[in-house]
């Protein structure tokens, strides 16, 4: 099994994300078993795995939204609650109430909430930052629109702007490419790449095997346990993908034949 670059990382407390022997269950049904993970600064990691593999659960546990049954998570060496401002998060689209009376600008401004205490006011700087981030995803023209009037791809770009406005060091994203057309997918991936260049650490749940190979630097293969974690060339192999998806999916055999045809360098 490939276990990343942990061998030569000496200062564990400096790691943006460290997951140790993490076990999580929903109503006594285990979803994740003993996951170990060490993510270095500036990593761009794709999380792959079949439905119900625990991809979202892993992310939510790292965010401290779900309490683990065993093991721990450390963010820059701290327990997650203390470090929570340093992580930006994009939840799955389905968990959002798109009919809520809120404008695009208000949504992006939410990215600034984490920087403020319960009662402190949102200031001009926050507004400027929000406009700047909207500009970055090419959505400034839509600032005053109700969020519900936007197309799926535009909504996803607004979410990305909100994440940018969080100015975090680490980002966890749950399927940012779901329900998005090809053009938007390109825009999103180029913004993610810029974020990586700016030294951000990114973990992205992804569902498309074919594009995963091109998008990410490292892959985490997950199926209730960590199947493999490492650079794309190490992990994206017929054998490991087979192990992750259990050979059940049609897409897998397709991908497997493709991998067999052009073996990765």
């Amino acid at each position, binding site marked *: 099994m490939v276990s990343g670059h942990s061998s030569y990382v000496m200062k564990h407390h400096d790691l943006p994300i460290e997951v140790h022997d993490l076990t999580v269950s929903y109503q006594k049904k285990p979803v994740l078993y003993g996951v170990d993970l060490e993510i270095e600064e500036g990593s761009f990691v794709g999380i792959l795995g079949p439905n119900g593999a625990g991809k979202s659960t892993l992310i939510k546990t790292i965010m401290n939204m779900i309490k683990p049954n065993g093991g721990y998570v450390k963010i820059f060496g701290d327990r997650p609650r203390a470090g929570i401002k340093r992580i930006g998060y994009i939840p799955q689209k389905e968990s959002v109430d798109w009919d809520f009376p809120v404008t695009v600008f208000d949504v992006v401004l*939410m990215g600034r909430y984490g920087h403020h205490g319960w009662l402190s006011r949102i200031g001009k700087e926050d507004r400027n930052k929000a406009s700047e981030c909207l500009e970055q995803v090419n959505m400034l023209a839509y600032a005053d629109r109700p969020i519900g009037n936007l197309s799926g791809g535009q909504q996803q770009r607004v979410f990305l702007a909100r994440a940018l406005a969080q100015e975090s060091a680490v980002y966890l994203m749950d399927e940012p490419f779901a329900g998005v057309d090809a053009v938007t997918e390109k825009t999103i991936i180029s913004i993610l790449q810029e974020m990586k260049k700016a030294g951000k650490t990114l973990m992205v749940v992804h569902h498309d095997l074919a594009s995963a190979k091109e998008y990410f630097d490292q892959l985490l293969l997950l199926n209730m346990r960590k199947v493999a974690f490492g650079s794309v060339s190490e992990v994206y192999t017929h054998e490991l993908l087979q192990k992750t998806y259990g050979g059940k999916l049609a897409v897998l055999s397709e991908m497997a034949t493709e991998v067999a045809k052009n073996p990765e360098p």
Partner: protein
Amino acid sequence: MKNWVIIFGGLLISSSFLEAKQIGSGEDLNWLTQAERFIEMKDPSIRKVALGALLMGLSCGLIGSYVVTRRLSLFGDTLSHAVLPGIAVGFIWAGEKENFSLLIGAGIAGFAGVCCLSLLKKFTKIHEDSSLGIVLSAFYALGICLLTRIQKVGYTDQSGLDSFMFGQVTSLSSGDIISLLITLLLIGLFITINFRQLLVTGFDPQFSKSIGIPNDFLQFLLWMLIAFCVISSLQLVGVILVSAMLVIPAATASLFAKRLKNYLVLSSLLGAGAGISGTFFSFLGKGLPAGPLIVLFSAFLFLVILFLRPEKGIIVCWLKARSERSRIIIENTLKATFKILEQKDFQENEITSLEIMKKRGLSRREVEREIDKLASSGFCTKNLSANDEANLPPQTVMILTPKGWEYACKIVRNHRLWELYLTNEAQYEPDHVHEDAEKIEHVLGEKTVRQIERLLKNPKLDPHGKFIPSITDIHQGNLPRPS
């Protein structure tokens, strides 16, 4: 057997709205004097009721915004029914209708109702609407049993109790006003402090959790405030209608508020407006119950706004569609005149109503009406001329003004350009394009037309070999126009 009688009796009470009470003295005053008395507000009892209705409208409107945006309407309904047994128990405990114990009882019962809901949610797979239905009806039935029992056994002062079912403004006490005021202050404070947090939890609970906002705690506080609001409003509108006050003003606001802030302001104003107008109308005559009138007024405001709101309102849409239709008719007539002139190689400039009738396939009266429309918009001038055939009435003869001529050219150009575009660029067959162009010609904007012209390299002829008047031709007056 006796229990069945009690339940049946309770249902009878609940189904009879005759119990609902009106404001004002029993004297038979004429409605104008009553209206004057209300507007003057000198009578302390009127002041009290108006103030109560105002406070209730504001609180219900504010907290109702959260009820509606978070889809808690059924929850509000359940809560209002669940407090009934608490009121009965509070009464039995105090032995009389004493506000404080009744409110405590209502609070406890409401809390118990919410607990039942949470338990059902946690331990069963019953859908939320069904569990709400179960809790609502069970608590309500229990409440009615207890109330009926109290009335039959005969406590000394049970007369005011049924006011909780339908609301009874006459028995509104200073204590009620104070509890309404406290509720409003609490709600206002809660929303002011937590506005941002409530916004983000309502829109995106996962994200809100991720930035450390305690969703569940906020939700709990929200439930408690809804309960306060329901309990303090009972005296005015009663158990059955109080949830309407939570839902209707906020739903009305949702028709056109795009941001939560506007939503809150609109909803509370609508609630207050309904409260005041409901009490006002109830005051005008005998047998007009205040509570139901307040609710009716909210529903009326909802309807008015549904029809009158800008952009999507039913009336605005209807007006828009009408003006659109009349524009299309004008454009079609102008196009017909162009084609008639074209058939005569632009050698004449007079067009008779008979020619338009033939071209458009319309009746004489319809054509006359269209010509009148064109003339009144300044697109043509018209005259009467003797008919060639002596036995027919004189015909209308029209001549296009320069403005009308330009408009006619524009429509024909739109039509023919679109036909050419479809055949050349979208590979339509020439005999398929006419129908489509008939519709598109009315909506093509100047910008699109220029784009198409550039794309097709300023074409002169359409797919049927007919000439396309170009924009520069129109503006420079180069066209073969009738002298």
